[in-house]
């Protein structure tokens, strides 16, 4: 283990920049403030890369800042650690974060509140880094809540529209439900370990002491922690907030609601893999929830018309894949998909942002089309990222998604693999549907939008191109054995142990071939329906299934009817009956009683000095009389 004072600066620099922009941002102006924010993340990225470079092969670097809580033998430190897993997350967060900061310089240039945007964005980077670098569960939770706060602030960034504020509230409240499970899990973990005489939340200590816990306890704890993950990582049944979170500015969707924050749940399970690995029941549940979410969200994405909604449901679906991998115990594969997904999904979101920017805020794909020639850079990067997410051979998504599907298959979970396979086909379909609707065919935008169609400035297209490159090459780190083998597994070996390889290479090739066939079918179907010359992308197919999918299975309506309305009714009852009559009644009653009793006595206090003097004399005389009586 190495210790280094350097680590604390990785999260602190963005925090400092955030504070400077918060207090002096208006004074130093929009562009310098944005440049400062980007430079801070750049500095963090440089430091993270240096740490990554210096990291000993199987080592951990630590930085103890100070002891945060000391109560008896229970000690929580504010201390950061970097190991192989954290290093990966650090590079994702700071690297993608840097690109998105730079992109935002262009995207937000016309926004009056650009300074506030960068304050929030830097604050988010800070909390995300605390989340991935914290060396104990409580610090992770601090980061976890912090990124939730920043997510809320950024979804409601354009708060003048009440819908955006409502979307922010929804994200925050749904996340609270998950966080309740998370914090209960932490409580039970602490309490059960304390019963064995161990007081700790430190990851390294937990890993050592985990055998003290009974299997039932571990199952309960991991189940509760997973509830937290379903909230943050938008899994069934708590995924409803993520599509609405698209109300925020597009760079936010790319950074927070695709590349980094929503993967926190996957990171948490990977960080606590020693705990989850001992709870087969929870893992099975995670696998089922993951596969179900992947499938369910993909079916919704098939019919959405809002460019960002498609990507949002696609994110939910891809997160489902990650949890499917977690459920299979393939934590390395899950983190690999986090890594590759960060690139191509950030690229897709930023590309869609570029399109929205060019069309002056239009998000409806039925009013797009034919943008290929107008914005070639955006188009080509979008093509690359679409191929990557669809899983075309030798793109990043191909390697990571295939790895997950292969792990699922080789673990014998054939049904889940089947679901994953169908989802892969649907992914290819809806992504190519989007590509065709946005960039190909006739331009369906109105004249006004057409007139000022333009390619985005270089500050926006360069990040796109870098991310597009990442959407291909990052996957090559985790190639399967039949190609050149996985450096990825080797890198994460100190964390997750050696990856076992089941199954024959021929089976693996067969499974891969099958996946590719399904993907190709999805792409071809999308071409037939939306891409072929003469196709009518904007026409609305009717039919029950289409309607259900378009309306997102009415999940929001069901939740509204089953949960929100009863809750509101109960709240109304308490607000109109209990609060004014019982609570206020008790408080006001005490006050009224005191006042009523005091009217009797306050007559004595007339304010007239001579009355007081008279009472004084009377008292003195009474005392005198009493003592004289005693004498005789």
């Amino acid at each position, binding site marked *: 283990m190495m210790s280094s004072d350097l680590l604390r600066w990785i999260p602190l620099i963005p925090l400092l920049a955030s504070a400077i922009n918060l207090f002096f941002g208006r004074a130093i102006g929009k562009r310098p403030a944005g440049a400062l924010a980007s430079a801070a993340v750049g500095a963090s990225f440089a430091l993270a890369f240096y740490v990554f470079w210096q990291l000993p092969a199987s080592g951990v670097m630590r930085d103890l800042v100070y002891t945060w809580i000391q109560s008896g033998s229970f000690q929580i430190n504010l201390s950061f650690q970097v190991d192989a897993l954290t290093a990966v997350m650090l590079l994702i967060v700071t690297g993608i974060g840097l690109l998105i900061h730079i992109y935002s310089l262009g995207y937000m240039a016309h926004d009056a509140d650009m300074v506030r945007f960068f304050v929030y964005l830097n604050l988010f980077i800070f909390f995300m880094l605390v989340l991935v670098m914290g060396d104990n569960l409580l610090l992770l939770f601090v980061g976890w809540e912090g990124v939730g706060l920043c997510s809320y602030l950024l979804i409601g960034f354009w708060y003048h529209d009440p819908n955006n504020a409502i979307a922010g509230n929804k994200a925050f409240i749904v996340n609270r439900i998950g966080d309740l499970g998370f914090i209960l899990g932490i409580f039970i973990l602490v309490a059960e370990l304390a019963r064995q005489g161990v007081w700790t939340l430190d990851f390294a200590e937990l890993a050592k002491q985990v055998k003290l816990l009974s299997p039932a306890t571990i199952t309960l704890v991991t189940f509760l922690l997973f509830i937290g993950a379903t909230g943050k990582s938008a899994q069934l049944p708590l995924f409803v907030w993520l599509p609405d979170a698209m109300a925020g500015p597009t760079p936010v969707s790319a950074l927070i609601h695709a590349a980094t924050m929503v993967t926190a749940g996957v990171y948490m399970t990977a960080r606590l893999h020693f705990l989850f690995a001992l709870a087969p029941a929870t893992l099975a549940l995670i696998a089922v929830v993951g596969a179900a979410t992947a499938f369910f969200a993909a079916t919704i994405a098939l019919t959405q018309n809002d460019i960002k909604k498609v990507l949002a449901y696609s994110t939910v679906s891809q997160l489902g894949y990650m949890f499917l991998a977690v459920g299979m115990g393939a934590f390395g594969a899950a983190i690999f998909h986090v890594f590759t997904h960060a690139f191509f999904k950030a690229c897709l979101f930023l590309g869609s942002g570029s399109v929205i920017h060019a069309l002056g805020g239009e998000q409806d794909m039925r009013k797009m089309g034919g943008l290929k020639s107008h914005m070639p850079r955006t188009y080509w990067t979008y093509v690359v990222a679409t191929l990557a997410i669809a899983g075309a051979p030798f793109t990043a998504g191909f390697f990571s998604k295939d790895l997950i599907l292969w792990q699922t298959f080789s673990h014998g979970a054939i049904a889940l693999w089947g679901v994953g396979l169908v989802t892969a086909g649907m992914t290819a379909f809806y992504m190519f549907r989007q590509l065709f609707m946005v960039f190909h065919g006739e331009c369906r935008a109105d004249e006004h939008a057409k007139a000022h169609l333009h390619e985005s400035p270089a500050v926006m297209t360069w990040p796109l191109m870098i991310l597009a490159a990442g959407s291909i090459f990052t996957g090559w780190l985790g190639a399967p054995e039949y190609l050149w083998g996985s450096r990825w597994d080797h890198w994460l070996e100190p964390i997750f142990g050696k990856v076992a390889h089941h199954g024959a290479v021929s089976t693996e090739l067969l499974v891969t071939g099958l996946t590719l066939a399904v993907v190709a079918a999805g792409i071809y179907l999308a071409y037939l329906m939306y891409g072929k010359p003469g196709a009518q992308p904007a026409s609305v197919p009717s039919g029950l299934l289409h309607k259900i999918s378009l309306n997102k299975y009415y999940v929001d309506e069901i939740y509204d009817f089953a949960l929100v309305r009863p809750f509101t009714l109960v709240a109304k009852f308490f607000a109109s009956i209990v609060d004014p009559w019982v609570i206020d009644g008790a408080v006001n009653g005490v006050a009224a009683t005191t006042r009523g009793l005091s009217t009797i006595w306050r007559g004595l206090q007339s*304010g007239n000095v001579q009355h007081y003097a008279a009472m004084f004399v009377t008292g003195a005389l009474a005392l005198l009389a009493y003592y004289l009586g005693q004498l005789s």
Partner: protein
Amino acid sequence: MIALHNYLILSAVIFSIGVIGVLIRRNLIVVLMSIELMLNAVNLTFIAFSRYLGSTDGQVIVFFVMAVAAAEAVIGLAIIISVYRHRQSLDPQEMQLLKW
């Protein structure tokens, strides 16, 4: 030679006059004078006992009381003046603001 009880009776009468004056007069200056009356009634008692018992302790205390009474008169009159400047009145019945 006048007997002790004569002094005490005189003192008690003066003291009572002082008490009644404090309680019933409607002018703060007279109230202050009544307090002086009570103090001097007490002084008279001290002196009478001092003579009767052949001790000087009582006389010493009388000096103290006179010093305190002088200080009290100074402060009391100063307060009365500033009260009068505020309210153009010296009636204690009208000064009843300090209540519940």
